[in-house]
């Protein structure tokens, strides 16, 4: 991946340790794999026990190191136990990628209270619990750290009204990112967010006519003319986890092919 020692020093993560929540599939899986390829030892998480075992094996087969644990971010006891186990497995936590999140759709007038609560319990409360528990460990260990929150471009520009609850949850994540950056800067813990645009995780049914119509409509709005890939997001995560970004904190990095440009 890198050509010179200089570049390896800039973006390399050798000797670093990382947690990626929600890493059994999709974007989280690719972030975990690429952090491992950059040199980090990684703890994976999934809601179902054993759910991330296959990804851990994938990383091991690539010559990396990974441990799969289970985590329900909505459950405080689970978060505490998870961070305890992750810290024990890694010895120290250098990087936390708060990726676990849910994305259900709902119309304003028919969405249930439960719809709203479930999204916020996972995307906001769950992220807060992980951030709190890991930042406390980072502070106690005194080695600084990087926290990367996976938000969404929907947090700053309306893309689809049926995601209103999701978009609101991600706007909360952005604000929490800024406040956490300010709160933990003295501990050399940097906190930033990545705002992905439309990502093709390869799960779309190409025979679904309505879905394809939506897909093409979105495509026309992306100046770079393509959907993003999980790799685009993983690259941004490596940048924000690496020495290359050591003066950046409290920022939201939009990775969207130009979708939100004014």
């Amino acid at each position, binding site marked *: *991946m*890198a*050509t*010179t020692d*200089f*570049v390896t020093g*800039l*973006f390399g993560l050798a000797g670093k340790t990382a947690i990626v929540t929600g890493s059994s599939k999709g974007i989280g899986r690719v972030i975990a794999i690429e952090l491992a390829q950059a040199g980090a030892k990684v703890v994976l998480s999934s809601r179902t026990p054993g759910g991330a075992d296959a990804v851990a094996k994938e990383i091991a087969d690539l010559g990396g190191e990974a441990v799969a644990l289970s985590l329900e971010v909505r459950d405080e006891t689970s978060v505490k136990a998870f961070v305890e186990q992750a810290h024990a497995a890694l010895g120290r936590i250098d990087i936390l990628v708060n990726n676990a999140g849910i994305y259900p759709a709902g119309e304003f007038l028919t969405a249930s209270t439960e719809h709203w609560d479930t999204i916020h319990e996972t995307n906001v409360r769950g992220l807060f619990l992980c951030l709190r528990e890991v930042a406390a460990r980072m502070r106690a260990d005194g080695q600084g750290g990087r926290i990367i929150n996976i938000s969404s471009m929907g947090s700053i520009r309306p893309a689809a009204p049926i995601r209103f609850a999701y978009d609101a949850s991600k706007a909360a994540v952005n604000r929490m990112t*800024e*406040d956490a*950056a*300010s709160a933990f*800067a*003295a501990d*050399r813990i*940097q906190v930033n967010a990545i705002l992905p*645009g439309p990502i093709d995780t390869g799960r779309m049914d190409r025979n679904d006519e309505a879905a394809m119509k939506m897909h093409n409509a979105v495509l026309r709005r*992306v*100046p*770079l*003319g*393509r959907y*993003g*890939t999980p*790799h*685009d997001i993983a*690259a*941004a995560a*490596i*940048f924000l986890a690496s*020495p*290359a*970004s*050591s*003066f*950046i*904190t*409290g*920022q939201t*990095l*939009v*990775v*969207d*092919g*130009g979708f*939100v*440009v*004014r």
Partner: protein
Amino acid sequence: MGDLAGRVVIITGARRGLGRDFAKLFAADGAHVVLADIQDASAATQAASETGPRCIAVQTDVTDRASVDALMAATLAEFGRLDVLINNAALWREPESYGILDCPLDVWNATWAVNLTGVLNCYQAAVPLMREGGFGRIINVSSTASATGSNSYGLSKCALELMTSGMAREVGKDAITVNSIVPGICAFSGAKGQLPGFDQILARIPLGRVGSSQDLYAAMAYLCSDAAGWVTGENMVLDGGLSTR
């Protein structure tokens, strides 16, 4: 990621300060750098060439389209293509020394001529070369002064960030990305003297230090990489968290 070896990079305002440091850092990473400056940049070019591959100096007035066209022609003649344009040249000290009420019209006009028309000229002249090469990265060097409307410098940087968005939208179809870096308080290597009230400023930066040329370079190295091929129209703030306070 961050692979700049063999890339051809134009940096405007590269004779001194941050631009000079950027040239050395890009060259150290294996890029051919064209150092464009209104004055003779041969000393900075010599320094950059010592760390990496061949670099050249081209004396350029960015406010003059003919001069910018000559810069592109010299780049093509020497290296055969253009991959990266760093719009770094800017008037800074004098525009920041006046508010709006007291700003002499010649300072006001000169600020817009260099900081915006200069970028316009370089952008218009560079895009055809990048289209030809099938790869392009344009980075505009803004400033956190863009967040305040206190003087012509900050106003020009505010316009530059919005211009970045417009450029990104316009040339996305050519797989050219356009982004800004937005430095907060940063020092280039060998910077002399200190800002008045430096200690109070330092105390307000959450990460407890000013930025370095290396910090800014690292962000540019990411934005120039293949790995950042889907990042465009972004204004990346590098300020040690100052704007979160």
